[in-house]
């Protein structure tokens, strides 16, 4: 499963007004994509379900860009497969 694509899908679902082309790795969740803290909780829930992982609140707290979300999930998946 392509992590970036899944993250993009989750972001667009949370904010249906979002233009897909804006979702790039270094885009700022809050300032560029209008994703607030409530959206982030919902996005984390849906990514947890998709990848069958659990994201901690600490991990989610330090996230500011789309790339950060992808990295956190990648790290989790690595731990899982390792």
């Amino acid at each position, binding site marked *: 499963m392509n992590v970036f694509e899944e993250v993009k899908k989750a972001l667009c679902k949370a904010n*249906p007004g979002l233009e897909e082309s804006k979702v790039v790795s270094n885009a700022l969740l809050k300032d560029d994509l209008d994703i607030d*803290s409530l959206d982030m909780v*919902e996005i984390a*829930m849906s990514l947890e379900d998709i990848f069958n992982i659990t994201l901690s609140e600490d991990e989610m707290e330090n996230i500011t860009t789309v790339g950060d979300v992808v990295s956190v999930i990648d790290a989790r998946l690595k731990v899982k497969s390792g």
Partner: protein
Amino acid sequence: MVTGYGAVTPLGLNVEDTWRNLIAGVSGVGYISLFDTTDFKVRIAAEVKDFDPVAYLDPTTARRNDRFAQFALTAGLQAIEAAGLKVDDANRYDVGVLIGSGVGGLDSLAQQLDILKTRGPTRVSPFLVPMMIADSAASQVSIKMGIMGPNFGLISACATGTDVLGVAYKMIKWGEVKAMVVGGADAAVTPVGLAGFAQAGALSRNSEPQKASRPFDMERDGFVVGEGAAVLVLENLNYAVSRGANIIAEVVGYGATSDAFHITQPLENGEAAAKAIELALADVERNEVGYINAHGTSTPLNDVSETRAIKKIFGDKAYEIPTSSIKSMLGHMMGAAGAIEAVVCCKVISEGVIPPTVNLEHPDLECDLDYVPNVARAGDVRIAISNSFGFGGHNSVIAIGRYDGQ
């Protein structure tokens, strides 16, 4: 002063369509389409039809709001536009919002309760609370329009839509704000909402949807759940004149009392309801009242006690005042009912037409007023009153008058 209004109702997605249907005697009641009613004793409601929130709101706002708040936002934006009210840095703090709701985001709560049970607490939506809270309707209008005066909700069950107007009227009168965006919204056509009202014995079991809501008729057997929103812009005279607003009508009085009797049953003799009418008419001549928009729910108890209350105040003259219940067509829009009824009172005054009470075929012997049976009629009305009563013993009455200019 009333300077604008908007509405989303079972008879239209704006005031004009709703009004046209009301004076044509059209019923908005039908079989429920919003969910499967197989196991329900009651399968009818007055649903808002063909409402696509994205047609009125941006997709993100639509998604983050319960249906009742979507209705409120849509009606609120219509009202503000109709009033030509521009909100900017010059008046942000002079304008407020007060939109009430009887049950708030009931469906959002019910859906998340299911998720809580089936998938656990970590899967409950972070949007549950903002979607469920009844004040979200007012808050969303404030956020959308940049209104920075007071913004809140108010709850008095089925009297909500009248109490909001009364409170806003007083806030304007006392000079706390120059203008208020005020109304009610509800979306109670949900599985748990319908089951709850049905179990309380409040709903009609009539199998013919369009015949079910029959206020003052001998065969009435309960109300029909409706849904929707209505919002008005109220403002003080000087402010309305200074900005060149079109004044449609004016609120001339408000009265509110409590039965202090029973949580669902009205006081049989209508004593406290009569007192509310008396208070609403404290500053006007009673004999100028030319139309009564009845609460008229179509429950056996309400329609008799309301009739008694009206007679108590107007005596023999009660028989001469056209009194109709638009719930016969709109069903009971709950917290929005009083607000749409106030809009209709404004229309009656400005258009000179009185909407009928449909399905009034064999009047109850104890309901012997002129309920404008089945067909609209012309009427020159200077002052109209709208009665709203609610579970909890709320009796609220608003009086609306023609504005002649000064």
